[in-house]
């Protein structure tokens, strides 16, 4: 392995951590410098992620770019890094969204120092979760990604007053963090139970997976631990009925936090189900897959119907995230190689698409100071670029061929029809509802004659433009040329399903 191949994964974790550390020592008044450091760090992360993604050799498969550092011998914890095909794609997603988020965050006026420090800690946690192959570190970074959310939302978020209710940022932040941490309590118990039951004296995921294959994690054990892991991680993936933190959190969070949150953080949940649930508890996954499938289908329909009832742009996007993460859960529940591949691709597709949505909603909100789709109108003639890109994201969201959402959703539906056609049909109905709320929203907000009050709205500035462009590229690329992405996913998907015996 070349020097870069050996160190790229750990660098992706150290880079945001070091950035945070450097920022702590920079004077708070040097805002331009702080923003430059923040964006530069995001750009480096994007380059590193792209490198890691391209360095993954799908012909070889398995875990690559592997590194092991001894850490805590007494408990058998090592700092183990490596990516399989699924993780490689997630690393790329993180790089893209991180860079876009760092650029958008520079638009904020108040106290960029603490903001970038927390944002970088969050990013370090996300990278760490995707590239850790030691169960302890997987959980370590998973928790690290959650912690900064509270402060990011509670300090820099916005409170909203709606006609019938209000959402303060403190409420949303507390609800989000307590619900996610409560779920991680289940994960924590599950992880300790797996470690003790396997009795291998190590947290190495490969060894623990072998223990599952050997039958040391017996079927009865897997059957009761799997639901803990499924709900624990599922909550972060927006799993119904534990999704309620997510729309509230999105509505109150500042733009760049929403982007990272919906773009990558929710993927950690689905990724956790794959890494811990499917790889370490294959028998449990087999027993519970139908439940996961059904819940995923409920997610799709429930999220779409809820989005239909919303008028606030962020609530619409928030519930559409719940709906789209449902496709991921459905795809995982199929235990079918096509469906599973679709689920993994949907994680990527939804990540960039929803980050794009939040970039644009943020831009509109900052200028018009409202997110109410009943008040906004005719923006296409005032903010041309923003409107065009929003419509593009909307079309990707409702699954227009040629954009990323189509490829991923079609694969999920094929997988669904190969296993449970009824659920697949219900899922497609969900996609139809998506078309209704997206097209209705687009029609109201962007077309028609604009009110006088929107005369002075300016289009996207340079920073927002760069962020949006970064996000549009993968949306289109996956849509018209999905092969390289699917090729990388293939060995990872095959290995996980082989463990389940499917």
């Amino acid at each position: 392995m070349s020097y870069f191949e050996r160190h790229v994964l750990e660098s992706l974790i150290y880079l945001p951590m070091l950035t945070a550390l450097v920022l702590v020592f920079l004077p708070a008044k040097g805002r331009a410098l702080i923003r430059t450091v923040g964006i530069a760090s995001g750009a480096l992360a994007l380059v590193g992620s792209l490198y890691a993604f391209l360095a993954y050799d799908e012909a070889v498969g398995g875990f690559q770019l592997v590194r092991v550092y001894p850490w805590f011998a007494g408990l058998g914890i090592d700092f183990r890094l490596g990516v399989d095909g699924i993780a490689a794609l997630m690393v790329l997603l993180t790089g893209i969204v991180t860079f876009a988020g760092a650029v958008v965050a520079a638009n904020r006026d108040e106290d960029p120092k603490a903001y970038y420090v927390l944002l970088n800690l969050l990013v370090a946690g996300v990278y760490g979760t995707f590239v850790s192959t030691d169960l302890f570190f997987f959980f370590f970074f998973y928790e690290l990604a959650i912690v900064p959310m509270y402060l990011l939302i509670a300090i820099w978020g916005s409170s909203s007053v709606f006609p019938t209710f209000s959402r303060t940022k403190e409420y949303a932040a507390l609800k989000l963090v307590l619900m996610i941490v409560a779920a991680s309590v289940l994960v924590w118990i599950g992880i300790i139970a797996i470690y003790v039951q396997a009795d291998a004296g190590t947290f190495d995921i490969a060894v623990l997976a072998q223990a599952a294959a050997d039958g040391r994690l017996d079927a009865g054990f897997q059957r009761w631990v799997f639901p803990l892991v499924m709900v624990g991680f599922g909550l972060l993936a927006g799993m119904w009925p534990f999704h309620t933190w997510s729309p509230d959190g999105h509505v109150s969070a500042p733009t760049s936090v929403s982007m990272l949150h919906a773009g990558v953080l929710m993927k950690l949940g689905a990724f956790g189900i794959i890494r811990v649930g499917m790889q370490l508890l294959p028998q449990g996954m087999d027993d519970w897959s139908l439940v996961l499938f059904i819940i995923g289908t409920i997610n799709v329909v429930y999220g779409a119907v809820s989005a239909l009832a919303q008028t606030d742009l962020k609530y619409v996007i928030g519930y559409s995230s719940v709906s789209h993460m449902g496709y991921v859960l459905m795809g995982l529940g199929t235990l079918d190689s096509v469906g599973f591949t679709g689920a993994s691709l949907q994680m990527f597709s939804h990540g960039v698409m929803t980050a794009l949505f939040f970039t644009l909603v943020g831009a509109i909100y900052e200028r018009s100071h409202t997110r109410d789709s009943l008040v906004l109108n005719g923006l296409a003639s005032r903010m041309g670029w923003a409107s065009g890109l929003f419509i593009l994201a909307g079309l990707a969201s409702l699954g227009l061929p040629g954009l990323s959402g189509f490829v991923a959703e079609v694969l999920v539906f094929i997988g669904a029809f190969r296993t449970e056609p009824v659920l697949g049909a219900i899922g497609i109905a969900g996609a139809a509802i998506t078309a209704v709320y997206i097209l209705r929203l687009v029609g109201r907000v962007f077309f028609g004659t604009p009110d006088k009050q929107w005369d002075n709205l300016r289009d996207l500035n340079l920073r927002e433009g760069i962020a949006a462009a970064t996000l549009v590229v993968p949306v289109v690329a996956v849509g018209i040329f999905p092969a390289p992405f699917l090729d990388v996913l293939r060995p990872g998907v095959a290995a996980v399903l082989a463990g389940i015996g499917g």
Partner: protein
Amino acid sequence: MHTDFSILLPEFLLAGLALAVLVVDMVLPQALLRRRSDVAAIIATVGMALVLAVTLLTARENTGFLYEQLLFTDRFALLFKVLFLGTGIAVSWMSQEYVGAKMRHPGEFHALVVLAVLGAGLMASAGELLTAYISIELLSFALYVLVGLGRGDRRSAEAVTKYVLLGAVSSAVMLFGISLLYGATGQTAFRYLEGLLDQVWAPVPIVGFALLVAGLGFKLSAVPFHLWTPDVYEGAPTPVTALISVLSKSATVALVIRFLAEGAMGYQEHWQVALVVLAVLTMTVGTLTAMAQTNVKRLLAYSSITQVGFVLVGLAALSEGSANAIALHLAGYAFTNLAAFTVVSMVEVRAGRESIAGYAGLASASPFSAMVLTAALFSLAGLPIFAGFITKFALFTAAAQEGLLWLVAVAVLASLVSLYYYLRIVRAMYVDKAEAGSPLAGRLALSPVSAALAWALLAGTIAVGVYPGPLAGWIDAATNALGPFLGT
């Protein structure tokens, strides 16, 4: 048998240091009188740092026991002595400003801190019941006086009254328990008790053991023996609260580990039930009551009760692994809690604030101290990259390995609830704005002396959290000195 007194050189030096602080304070020349509290703090801090150096330099490979098992000077004792000296140094250091501003007896204050460290070190070394009892009393008496040193403060007077009265009762109960164990077996040395306890009429050792647990439970503030804790924590001068929460708890835990490991490991199935009940009660009551607190010191009191509950989980599942995990947890807890109290003490002295609501706006008045306190609270809540995450993880994993997974589930839940009340302080500091005219509306900063300490403690909290390997290796070597874990 050793009768080589040079092995106890650090202990003699500590006793001498306590006297030296007092004497220097008495004979201080007129010119230095205004810097009286600084002089005492410097002598105590530097003196303890020197004793720490001597302790490490003169440490020998497990010398075994001294004087017919009265005292052990093994690596286990060494580990805790280092921890206690470190705690003593930090407390003397952080009280430099507090004592100068709020107290009239700096010499006595710092001398008593040194004596408390001495008592704690002896508790970790004690190999038989009476030595243990005397060491506990040495520590307790130092703490009784320290709690009452906040002269002119009625809460301090109330605190010391409660602490002394309840402490005396608990000591009496413990002594009665010891006398029963001695009466039944004719032995007080831990190692000789093992093997004798099941040869006598069963109720006597059971009652004796129960009384001993009650007495030690008081020192630990395990529920239901915890009722003194919030009042004493609130009323005591803040650095003394830090001292009680770290030093007195860790010393008692060290003593309990040695007693159970050396003297009662064969009866684990019997005492495990008692400790499991205590652990569940302590964690539940600690977390639930903490939620209702409005005073930061009281909240930290209940939070320390919860932390003791976590340690009890480890004690109930005592094995070499959990002894290691407990020691690691105590080390991480020392860094974390001392960091928190450094900031709490500063806010009390410079802004006169003790209530959670009073912390509003601290983040803009003093970004650094808000960051330190936030890091400490996140560490107490068990979040990464701070010490609390890995130490709790190790503790719970060790307990689960001994078959107590359900108890671990309770502990993890308690840990979740604790996050809620720690976030209340974080929210006050970062989200709420200081009201106009309050001391927190302008700038406020740690003195350079306290800031240096806060940096060191913060670095320690993070170092344990991101790279515990070396410390854990050292701890593992230390617990190997305990009889039942010898060479394992």
